[in-house]
């Protein structure tokens, strides 16, 4: 039975003796109990993660690459945390051996490593935030489903861009900036017509549900490609085929109209020349005839005037026919331009301010995992179009919940380290303080040991 005198810090009532059940200081008992409560806290969070993740519709949970989780960075962070675990245990050893300086050095090292951990975490968070991946409110870019709502959100986003760029241009910015803005305006307009409006039309016109879904998928894929939707590249080929077919279909009537216009133009010109010639002849004949023309002359003039009327009529008709043909051509040209714009959007071309969709996304299926990268959002970081990630909101919710609470625990640990470092030497008398904060720090490490595979590798 260990008994301990119990020191109370202020005025002197009698010191009582106790019979502790555990051969460790009260602080350590309390800390272990606190860690038990922490275990339950994280068990609830991790349990929720597990049921939400595996309760999500099969195969929808985003892979690490879909949401910019880089395993290597996670592994590096794991390494940093392991290092900090070693340094703090070394700090404890040093403190036990009464080497205060060494202990402080190791504790400081732990502090530095913990800060590094948070720094890397912040870098990781930033890469998610930059892509607009965070829980729904106030305005994350993540959409769980590519559907009409998603399409409208993209259109809205582009129109907002357009309005803000025009507003900036109206303010007469510097020449260089104006140039950039004008380019952006081109991109926005190009996407609005050849990307959004095109898809909208395709979906509105089609009765084929599969084709509609393919359009939606393709639409979302080239904004923000997901490995699971790599099939969208073949939809794009299909789309290109349709576009080219349309272009081809347009070519013959357009050429025909063109030649028709040529023909009518020529006719009109000839008729015009004749009209002019006739007018001159009539003028001349009238001059010759003077004030009192002879019957013969009268007849000649009348004949010429008849000819003139015929020629004029011919000219008017030819012009009208030409106009009609060119209107028709213009209509076809609009169609052609749309299809051509679409073709250029897909294949690339001189008129397109946007690089070809085909070149925009790279699909690499050589390795064990299919890897994709690129997309409009990556090529034009300023665009920030809504993105489609199945179960994306749930992923963001759980990821930020788990790592956020873990990071908060790290931050609290760092704060305590600072306080301990500032409040005096770490000699043997304070070894149990180092031990307690060490236990807490190891617990934080333990949580990360489980979070790392669950969040990065699964």
């Amino acid at each position, binding site marked *: 039975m260990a008994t301990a*005198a119990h020191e109370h810090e202020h005025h002197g009532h009698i010191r009582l003796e106790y019979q502790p059940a555990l051969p460790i200081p009260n602080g350590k008992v309390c800390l272990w109990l606190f860690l038990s409560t922490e275990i339950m806290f994280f068990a609830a969070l991790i349990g929720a993660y597990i049921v939400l993740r595996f309760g999500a519709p099969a195969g929808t949970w985003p892979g690490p690459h879909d949401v910019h989780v880089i395993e290597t960075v996670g592994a590096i962070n794991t390494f940093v945390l392991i290092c900090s675990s070693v340094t703090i245990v070394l700090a404890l050893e040093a403190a036990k051996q009464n080497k205060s300086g060494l202990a402080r050095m190791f504790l400081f090292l732990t502090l530095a490593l913990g800060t590094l951990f948070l720094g890397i975490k912040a870098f990781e968070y930033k890469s998610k935030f930059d892509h607009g991946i965070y829980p729904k409110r106030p305005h994350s870019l993540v959409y769980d489903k590519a559907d009409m709502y998603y399409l409208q959100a993209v259109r809205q986003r582009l129109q907002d861009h357009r309005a803000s760029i025009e507003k900036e241009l109206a303010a007469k910015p510097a020449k260089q900036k104006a140039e950039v803005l004008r380019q952006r305006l081109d991109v926005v307009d190009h996407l609005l017509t050849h990307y959004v409006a095109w898809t909208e039309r395709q979906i509105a016109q089609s009765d084929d549900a599969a084709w509609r879904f393919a359009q939606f998928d393709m639409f979302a894929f080239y904004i923000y490609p997901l490995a699971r939707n790599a099939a969208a590249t073949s939809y794009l080929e299909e789309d290109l085929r349709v576009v080219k077919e349309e272009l081809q279909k347009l070519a013959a009537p357009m050429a025909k109209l063109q030649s028709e216009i040529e023909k009518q133009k020529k006719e009109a010109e000839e008729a015009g020349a004749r009209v002019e010639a006739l007018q001159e002849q009539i003028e001349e004949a009238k001059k010759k005839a003077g004030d009192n023309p002879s019957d013969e002359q009268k007849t000649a003039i009348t004949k010429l005037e008849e000819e003139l009327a015929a020629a004029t009529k011919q000219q008017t008709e030819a012009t009208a026919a030409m106009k009609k043909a060119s209107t028709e051509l213009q209509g076809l040209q609009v169609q052609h331009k749309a299809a051509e714009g679409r073709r250029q959007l897909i294949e690339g071309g001189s008129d397109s301010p946007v690089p070809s969709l085909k070149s925009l996304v790279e699909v690499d299926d050589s390795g064990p995992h299919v890897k994709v990268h690129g997309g409009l959002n990556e090529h034009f970081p300023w665009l920030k179009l809504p993105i489609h990630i199945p179960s994306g909101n749930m992923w963001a919710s759980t990821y930020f919940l788990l790592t956020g609470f873990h990071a908060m625990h790290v931050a609290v640990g760092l704060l305590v380290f600072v306080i301990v470092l500032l409040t005096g030497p770490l000699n043997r008398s304070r070894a149990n303080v180092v031990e307690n904060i060490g236990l807490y720090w190891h617990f934080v490490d333990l949580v990360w040991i489980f979070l790392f595979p669950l969040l990065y590798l699964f």
Partner: protein
Amino acid sequence: MNAHDVSTDVASDAHGHEEHGGNAKYLAVFGALVVLTAISFFLANSSVYETSPVVARAAMLAVSCAKALLVMLFFMHLLWEANWKYVLTIPASLMSVFLVLMLVPDVGRRTEKYNLERWRHASEPAQIQHHQAGHGADEEPHETPDEH
């Protein structure tokens, strides 16, 4: 820090006895932790994960448990502590495992009870949506989701 935390006779009693740990041991544990981390990292990127993800995940969790055990035994000194360690660690561990276990059979396997509305809006892979009768139709052959 509270006055009660500061080392008392109890504290020095508990820590006074024979020196365990030792820096060499800590470094060895550190090495093991790094190796184990590397193992799970490569598991995730290996063909095992591709062919049988369940096996790979189980292996990764086993690796994590091993790491956790190493940290607890050596860094948290549980290896050298008296029997109180069981009193303070086992209940919480059991309870947390039990909580997760009881959640999984119920809410974890809920997809089979998704209603049609939910399937309609479930973020399914596109391939499944193409043949649109697939939504739980095996159970209810007469129900197909309508398209608005």
